[in-house]
């Protein structure tokens, strides 16, 4: 880190310490909320949800060979396949949001062009495994599912519209050499990799199995047996790890998991503290009064959805921090529709990444893309608000 950055952090901390009126009751209440929310995350979400999710993310980056997916982004690939693959492949290619932009630039300049590139750009942050797992765990399976489906569907639509508006002449594309597809040797058959990932996901699902509302029935039985099932699966996973994976790969897996954790945990915890300080836990008020939240993004009106989309589009969310912020807003009276709108527009766009996108595709295309994202997020919010 550059010294200039360290100095600006010092200055920020100093100014906060100097000016925040800690003796005021509402500030004290907000501080308690901040740490209560942090405690809630530490107790409810870290051990059983986030840590397994990081191991899955690490495994994806080490064990899944990406060449088979990447060939669909080439200039010669069939367009319909490019769009479909672009909308869902974020889950394995963009495990963390920092890899989305370079991939976007490559698909645009060297591969399948503007359509699939923007499809990938929009869907990537929403379908990455960490985001899906944490959204479903904290905000509920319904919103997690709506986020993934909304992102995938609208990503294809946005990409297609961008393609129609800004299609390049075919001969201009041909002068660019096609993308490099690296041949990676498969170190184990596909069924082993599949079984290995399925087991990890199953463990994650079973340890987080929620107590069902009604007694009896299959769900309640699974709930009562969840630790037995999880332990058996964990033993099976341990056997696979030692029988199928060699020592070097195990080391790589641990290292990638650690790199993700090192990068994402501090930001997520800072995000949780800020969300708790400003918005509080659900049912508790912190610094921002609930009436304000209800006035701006309550209900499911066009205004609320549009406001959530625009605010989300410009605001920067570090990886996963959209989840605690949304949790705070929902608890303070935000409508379900605007929540989805914010989830769709938020992580996909921010002021800093708009500037990077602009440097790649130019001002006109960027403006159109941002407008499309805002409009689509608003529409998805309206639809979800009605059916949810």
């Amino acid at each position, binding site marked *: 880190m550059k010294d200039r950055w360290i100095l600006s952090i010092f200055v920020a901390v100093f100014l906060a310490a100097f000016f925040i009126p800690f003796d005021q009751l509402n500030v004290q209440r907000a501080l308690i909320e901040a740490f209560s929310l942090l405690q809630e995350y530490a107790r409810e979400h870290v051990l059983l949800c986030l840590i397994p999710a990081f191991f899955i993310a690490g495994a994806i980056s080490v064990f899944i060979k*990406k060449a088979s997916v990447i060939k669909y982004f080439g200039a010669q690939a069939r367009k319909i396949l490019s769009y479909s693959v672009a909308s869902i492949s974020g889950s394995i290619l963009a495990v963390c949001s920092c*890899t989305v932009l*370079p991939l976007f*630039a*490559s*698909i645009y300049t060297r591969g399948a062009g503007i359509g699939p590139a923007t499809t990938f750009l929009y869907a990537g942050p929403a379908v990455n495994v960490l985001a899906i797992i944490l959204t479903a765990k904290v905000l509920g399976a319904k919103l997690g599912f709506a986020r993934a489906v909304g992102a995938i569907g609208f990503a294809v639509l946005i990409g297609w519209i961008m393609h129609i508006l800004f299609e390049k002449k075919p001969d201009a594309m041909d002068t660019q050499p096609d993308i490099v597809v*690296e041949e990676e040797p498969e170190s184990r058959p596909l069924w082993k990799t599949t079984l290995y990932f399925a087991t990890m996901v199953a463990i994650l699902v079973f340890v987080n199995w929620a107590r069902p509302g009604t007694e009896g029935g299959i769900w309640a039985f699974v709930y009562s047996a969840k630790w037995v099932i999880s332990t058996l699966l964990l033993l099976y996973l341990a056997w696979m790890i030692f029988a199928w994976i060699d020592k*070097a790969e195990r080391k790589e897996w641990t*290292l990638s998991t650690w790199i993700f954790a090192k*990068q994402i945990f501090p930001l997520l915890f800072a995000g949780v503290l800020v969300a708790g300080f400003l918005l509080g836990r659900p049912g508790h008020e912190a610094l921002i009064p609930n009436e304000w939240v209800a006035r701006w993004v309550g209900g499911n009106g066009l205004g609320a959805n549009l406001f959530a989309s625009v605010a989300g589009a410009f605001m920067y969310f570090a990886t996963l921090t959209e989840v605690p912020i949304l949790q705070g807003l929902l608890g303070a009276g935000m409508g379900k529709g605007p929540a989805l709108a914010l989830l769709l527009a938020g992580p996909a766009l921010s002021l800093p990444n708009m500037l990077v996108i602009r440097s790649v595709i130019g001002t006109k295309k960027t403006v159109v893309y941002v407008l499309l994202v805002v409009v689509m997020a608003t529409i998805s919010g309206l639809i979800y608000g009605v059916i949810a």
Partner: protein
Amino acid sequence: MALSHENKQLDPDEFFLRRQKMDIRILGTGCPRCNEVEKRTMNVLAELGVAADVQKVKDIKEIAKYGVFGTPGLVINGKVKSHGRIPSLEEIKSWIQQEK
């Protein structure tokens, strides 16, 4: 004068004509995974005692010019060796010995 040429962006063909020592580019926007690739490359170079010009390419438009998908990427003497993953020390070692 010869030195000042080395820092310029050369296309691969031109590069081979003027090549003096190994040229390594690490493609990545500065994420921790890219730093890991840089660290490993440096370790291998030190271990093998090979002199190389190692540059980081952080601009995403420059990265896209190499036609790679996903960062971190490792380019040795204009050839893309790996992308979208962290290569192992052994792999980096063999690529550097190939290009020496």
